[in-house]
Each structure stands twice: as C-alpha cells, then as structure tokens.
C-alpha cells in the first residue's frame, strides 16, 4: 500500500473531523483509532483541544509511540497535567466534556451500543463491559461512535452477524432512544447523544429524530454494501459524498504516532489491505 492511504488512516481522519477546536474530548481505552484521531486533531485543526487520555487521565499527553494497552506510562508521556478517575467523570457530569467516543458489539439505529452481553434473556456471550460508557453516554456533549467491523458477510447458511442491529440485546451506552422508545431528554439527560458514526463501510450522522443516516462512503464501498451489512435501514443523506482522504501530513503524522501500527489490530484482517488514493 506504499503511496496509498489506508482504511485505518482514513477512519482516523474521519473521526478526527468530528472533534472541534477549543473543546474537551476523552478517549476511552481499547481504542487506538480514536486515540490517534484525538492526537491528529490536537496537532492539526484543534490545537486548543483539551485531550484527556483514557485510562491514564493525562491531559494533552505526547506519547513517543502508541502502546497496545492504554493504562501505560507510554500513553501518559508529556502530559501537562493529570486528572483522577473521579475528576474525569465529574467533568462529563458537569457538562464540561464535549465529546466522547464509544463503540459496541451491537450498535442500533439510534446509536445505542451494547458492550455488556449478547443474549437479551439468556446470557450467550459475556462481553468485557462498558467501562465508563454508560454514564458518559448520558452526560457528554456529543458522541462519535465508531466500529471497524460494520461489514457482516453472510456465512454458509446465508446468515449474517450484524454489528449494526435493529435492536441491541442490552443497552450499555444510550443513544437517542431507550429500548422502550423513550428519548434521553425525557429522562433529563443533558448529553447531546451520538452525532456521528465512522465505520469500515461509511460515515453517518443522526437526523433530527435521532435516526442514523448515511452521509459518506469510501471510494470502494457503496450504498448497497452498507445496506447489506446493516440489519436496519439507515436513512440516506441527500448527498452521500465520498469520505475525504487525510492530507499527506496527517498520514505522516499517524505513521509517526503509531510506528507499530497498533491501530490495525482494530481492523478486520481483510480490511488491513484496503487503500485509497
């Protein structure tokens, strides 16, 4: 893929575009694409971003390289200050945390995520759990969702294991509707909910009703690809554009920040070869 921009790099840039300058944003753990997106934003269009690192709670760190685990002094290197766990979550509860990044093994059309368990009644698969996502999803200003496993190929029986599902078995992180159809505002939640989703197939926003809407595709994906791999029918933006590729400086920045290509562990094996431009 020499000379090319990879899928991972393009996703990182797409996530970075959801981050505004002069705001505070927090990446959780286990999320190298997001970690890199925050570092890219901070070093390009959002120099006054308050970057809070997941697990270490360092402020504006400058890690020499991306480590495969988040709560590592590598990831805290160069932080100008540090928070306690309680302070980080207080910031969100007090409305000071503008953006958080969440994912799930299931993501529904309202942007709710399940990282707790498969099986709505009987436990079929225990997932690692949501970390701070459940609280944060109700409190932060806005959320960027992401997944690198949107594509849901049919198996021999023609069955697909959807990542983007009609309904989550369990809502760990709340989007724009509860399982019984209530809106977060009815619950008095102050968070704005998810406003973007970046996947390996496309990018989405959420319409005024809070429903997921496709707004962008990669040069190698189509609306049909998205529809096929999505259990519900996403809305379509009037103008579904091609997702912009990152500038060369951004690509170079990502490669410098992540020399071990840790972020590619998030991608499906087949997607590691995808390249653009």
């Amino acid at each position, binding site marked *: 893929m020499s000379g090319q921009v990879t899928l991972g790099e393009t996703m990182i840039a*797409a996530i970075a*575009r*959801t981050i505004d*300058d*002069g*705001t*505070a944003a927090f990446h959780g753990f286990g999320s190298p694409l997001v970690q890199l997106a925050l570092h890219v934003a901070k070093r390009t269009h959002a*120099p*006054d*971003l*308050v970057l809070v690192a997941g697990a270490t709670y360092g*402020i504006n760190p400058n890690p020499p390289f991306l480590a495969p685990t988040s709560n590592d002094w590598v990831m805290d290197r160069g932080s*100008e*200050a*540090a*928070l306690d766990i309680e*302070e980080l979550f*207080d*910031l969100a*509860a*007090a*409305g*000071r945390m*503008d953006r958080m990044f969440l994912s799930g093994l299931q993501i529904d059309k*309202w942007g709710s995520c399940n990282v707790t368990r498969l099986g709505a009644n009987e436990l079929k698969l225990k997932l690692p759990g949501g970390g701070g996502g459940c609280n944060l999803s109700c*409190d932060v*200003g*806005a959320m960027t969702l992401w997944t690198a496993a949107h594509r849901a190929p049919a198996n021999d029986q023609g069955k697909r294991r959807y990542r983007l599902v009609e309904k989550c078995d369990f809502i760990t992180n709340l989007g*724009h509707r509860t399982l019984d159809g209530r*809106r*977060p*505002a009815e619950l008095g*939640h*102050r*968070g*704005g*909910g998810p*406003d*973007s989703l970046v996947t390996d197939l496309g*990018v989405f*926003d*959420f*319409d*005024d*009703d*809070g*429903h997921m809407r496709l*707004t*962008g595709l990669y040069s190698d994906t189509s609306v049909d690809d998205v529809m096929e791999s999505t259990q519900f029918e996403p809305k379509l933006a009037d103008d579904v*554009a091609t*997702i912009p590729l990152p500038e060369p400086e951004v690509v170079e920045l990502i490669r410098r920040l992540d020399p071990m290509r840790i972020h590619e562990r998030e991608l499906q094996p087949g997607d590691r070869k995808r390249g653009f431009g």
Partner: protein
Amino acid sequence: MTDAPTNGNGSDWPGAPVHTAGDKRTELDELIGHVENGNTVAVGGGLSSREPMAIIRALIRKGVKDLNVVGSAHGIDIDLLCAGGCVSESSESYVGFEQDFGMAPNYRRACESGDVKVNDSCCYTVVQQLRATIMGLPFMPVRSIRGTSVFDMHPEYKTMTCPYTGEELTLVPAVQPDVAIIHAQYGDAHGNLRIEGPPVADILFAKASKKVVASVEEIVSNERLKELGGANIPYFYVTALAEVPMGAHPTACYPFYAYDRPHTKDYYDQAKQGAEAFKSGYLDPFVFGCTSHEAYLEKVGGEDTARHLGSWKDGDEAWMSLYGSTPA
C-alpha cells in the same frame, strides 16, 4: 460528514465552561476585569495563608460592589473587602484573626450595620455545595446541620427521607461561584496552577467556579511545573493568570515568605479604631494610595521586607522571630 453535526437529543444545556486558550498570561489590572459587580466570589487561601491580597486590593481600587463571598475560614482578605465596600453578602464559615488578634473589625462592622447580609455557612456544607456543582448535581446530601440554628438561617436547605434507610437527610443546593480568585505559588503560561502546602478549598473552588483568575508568585514552564510536583489545578479551569510576586502579602506564601505579623497587627489596630480611622490609617496609604502592586510593595518595605519574611528558611529561631509584633 457535517461540520456542525446534528443532534437528535435537543439538549441546549450549556454546561460548565472549559478554558482552552493557549496563553492565559495577563497583568493584574486585566485579571480583575473578570470580577463583576454582584458576583459570587470564592476567595482562595485561608486564615493567614496564601490569600489573594494583591487581587483584593486591586478590586477595592477598582470599586467592585455587591460581591457575595463564599468559603471556609478567612481573615484579613474578607475583612479588607468589607472595609473596601465591595461585599453585600457573606456566606463564609469563619472570618477572624484567631487567638492572634481575635474578631475581624471591618467584617463585624459591616455585618452589624446591615451593609453585609450575614449568611454564614460551615466548612463541610461549603464543600458539599461545591461538590454538587463539580458533579453537575443540583444538590448534595449531608447528615448534619438539622437541629442547629444554621439550618434555620438557610431556607434553601431542604430535607429528604432516604429511600434506602428511611432516615432524614439534609440537602444543600449546588453553589457555583461566578469567579474564584486564587493566589498560587506557581503557574505556567497555559494556566496550570501548582499550590504548595495546604490547598484549603482552592482546588474545589477552581473546579466549581465559572471562572478562575489567579495571581502566582512565579510563572514557570510546564516542564518546571512538573519538576516541582505538577499542577493541582489543571489549566482548563483557569481563565487568566498574572505573575504577582508577594501577591499574598501580608498573608504567607511559603516557601517564598511567611505571614507578615507586624503589618497585620498594624492593620488590626487601625481597624479596631473604627471605619474612619481605618480609612485614613490603612486604606488610604496601602490600598488607594498605591496605584499598582509594585507601589504597594515599596510602601511595605520593598526588598527588605521580602528578605525578612523569607528568613523563615534560616532555622527555627529565625522563623519564630517573625511572630513578634514589630518588624525586625
């Protein structure tokens, strides 16, 4: 992907601010522009230590009015603000000079004349009210207060029956100061602050307030700040800061200087004689008559005083000698 993402939840809650500017350094006179008439103000430090006295003198010179001061245990800071006519309400839990001199004369006069509405609080109540704001909650529970006259003084306190234990608890509403004024030993250009020694309520004030303005003894690089032990107030709480050496004088700001007890005794003696005497004997020469902090420092003895108050480092005898009532 939209530049201004849509938001299906319709929340218009502004939230508490984060202060993200890259360089927050300014001058004392600019700094105090963040304090407005009628503000609820949290004053950092406590008793005879690390009170933001240079800021307070500048506020008095500027003629700021109708402040509601909130906090825990205070002394010359609140007393001087009262003498300067800046305060209309006090929600402090203590204003005095301990056994050293006793009651705070200007504060007493202002309360007893009705100029300052007495709305006394208590340290843990203040802590819980600040914590409520810090956690984005409308109130915090506490077990205490009910049964005291402090409870009766505060119609805004409520009670609830605990749904877990059936017991009655007191609820105290969130307090969000408009501005915290803090004097710290060190800060960096970004606004990270490092307080050395007891932080009193300053860190809580910083987290709970809409704005934080700080004077510091020294502005240093972030690297140096970390060598010194790191920020205990991260920059994003801080609106602006100014380097104001000796900015806590006559209160202490260790390791730079100890409490100026002779100056404070003079202050107290003048204050005790009445409002008129205090105006001519203290306010005029030390506040109104010094149009800058530099002029004030000259007035109180300049380098000699700074050196003398720094001599606590020379050993216990030298340190103890600073607590006499006359300058050495």
